[in-house]
């Protein structure tokens, strides 16, 4: 039992009749990088605030390292948080901010530990700088140093990179992951950016409307999405609603797709699995070719249906007819 640093069971939290968390259950292992992924308003930040102790659940239990947290205030919980807006103390310099938690603990060798933490986040020598003179990335790193220096059991990160520009964000993703590995600390990471979640996490929980739709490693969530929502939110897809008889699924507009599903289902094929002019298949018309550098998106139309393909081998131009095909094993079956 003790291998779980965070255990959330059946947690419900409502705000004025709206349920921000509607029966959440999840378990995070020791040293795991765990992401809560979902659109804004899905309840992921509320769940994080419940773990931090800023809110208390209406129903359900939250355990940290096997201990029930009911009634335990934030300052008695062995978790630290990196806030979305960093929440640095403006009246303290960088060292003062980082030392804040250590001073409360009356820890020995505060100066040395502050220096070590600043080195870990790449801010060596920043001790005496005023936090208001720092760039966004430097503020982010200061907030990170402040949160890790006391060595909490779990680090909570609330969209810590969302305010930074793309280039900086990518660099920091890598750094955060490396830092997490070297500290061996459990990270609970909240984000609405699916690429970020896939790139960094050991496991991802995809949330929608206060519920968890799927929990699993990034590859599993991406390749075998459990629901239509997960399939659409984590990456993009071509969806086909139809009825299956065990060998074929037939759609309302007359398509027959090879698949063993039975009953009413939604089929999904990822754009990168779709081949254009790669053999016999569905007849379509190329509408748009969107060159994106590393990849090219091809938008096609087959009847009333819009299809997206990412096929690096395709050489087509808008207005041309083309065939669209995929391997049967690349078809994902989703409950309708």
């Amino acid at each position, binding site marked *: 039992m003790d291998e779980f640093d965070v255990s959330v069971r059946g947690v419900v939290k409502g705000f004025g009749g709206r349920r921000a968390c509607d029966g959440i259950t999840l378990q995070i292992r020791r040293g795991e990088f765990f992401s809560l992924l979902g659109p804004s308003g899905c309840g992921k930040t509320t769940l994080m605030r419940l773990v*931090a102790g*800023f809110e208390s659940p209406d129903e359900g239990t939250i355990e940290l390292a096997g201990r029930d947290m009911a009634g335990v*205030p*934030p*300052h008695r919980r062995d*978790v*630290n*948080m990196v*806030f979305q*807006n960093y*929440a640095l*103390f*403006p*009246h*303290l*310099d960088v060292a*003062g901010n980082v030392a*804040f*938690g250590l001073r*409360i*603990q009356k820890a020995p060798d505060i100066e040395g530990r502050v220096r070590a933490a600043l080195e870990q986040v790449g801010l060596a020598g920043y001790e*005496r*700088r*005023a*936090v*208001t*003179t720092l760039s966004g990335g430097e503020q982010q790193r200061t907030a990170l140093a*402040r*949160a890790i220096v*006391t060595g909490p059991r779990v680090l909570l990160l609330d969209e810590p990179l969302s305010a930074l520009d793309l280039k900086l964000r990518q660099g920091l993703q890598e750094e955060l992951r490396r830092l997490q590995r070297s500290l061996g600390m459990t990270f609970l990471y909240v984000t609405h950016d699916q690429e970020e979640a896939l790139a960094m996490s050991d496991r991802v929980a995809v949330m929608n409307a206060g519920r968890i739709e799927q929990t699993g490693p990034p590859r599993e969530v991406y390749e075998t999405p459990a629901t239509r929502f997960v399939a659409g939110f984590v990456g993009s897809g071509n969806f086909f609603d139809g009825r299956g008889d065990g060998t074929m699924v037939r759609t309302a507009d007359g398509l027959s797709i090879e698949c063993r599903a039975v009953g009413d289902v939604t089929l999904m094929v990822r754009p990168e699995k779709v081949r254009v002019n790669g053999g016999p298949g569905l007849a379509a018309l190329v509408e748009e070719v969107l060159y994106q550098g590393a990849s090219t998106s091809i938008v096609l139309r087959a009847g009333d249906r819009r299809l997206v393909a990412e096929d690096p081998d395709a050489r087509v131009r808008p207005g041309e007819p083309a065939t669209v095909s995929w391997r049967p094993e690349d078809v994902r079956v989703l409950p309708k």
Partner: protein
Amino acid sequence: MRKLLGAWTGLVLVTLYVPIAVMGVFSFNASRRPRWTGFTLDWYRKTLGDHNIQDAVWKTLVLAAASTVLAVALGTAAALAARRSFPGKRLWNTLVSLPVMVPDIVMGIGLFALFHALGTGLSLATAVIAHATFNLSYVAIVVSARLQGTDRTLELAAQDLGATPWGAFRKVTFPAILPGVVSGALLAFTLSFDDFVITYFTAGTGNMTLPWKVYAMAARMGVTPEINAVSTLILGASLVLVVAALRLSRVPVTGGGR
């Protein structure tokens, strides 16, 4: 049109400041008559050496200091309370800031009636309570303005790092609002120091403060150079306090390091 406007502005400024200038100039005049005969510091020497005036100054300072401490504690607490949401919050905010608009004479008579009804008698202590009553509104208004610019997640961040709610307030919120608190304190001190009407109704006859003393001297002997000197000193002290209060209230909320 522009010229007219300029002349009008000039006239307003002259009306505002000439009386004060006259008072200041004649406090240095060698003659008792309102005709300049030469520079002297005699009136200042004389006033500052006057035991009655010394006593009045002392009482004024004690009253101002004590009522300021009380007003700062209560006014800051009132401002902090207004951060939470509770039923009747709007009414509460109105009630807290209303005394700023109540005429002094009404406030003075009201407090006089209250102390009379309570049978406490009148003393420096009742005057302290009276001054704290109207000053707490000013403090609450100044501190509230400061609090509105302070990020509440800072307090959460402090608690997250292990600070108790009280510790978070002491180490994070209080330093953030401190310029507002000091500014409110200076304002309260100035208002108390200058007050005549409310003191007159609540301090009792034995406790003449400086403004009251000035009034009494003028009522008895007309405006003398001594009064000019005392008034000029009061003006100087008030100016310093008000300027300091204004400066502090403009310290940016996210001011840099220490």
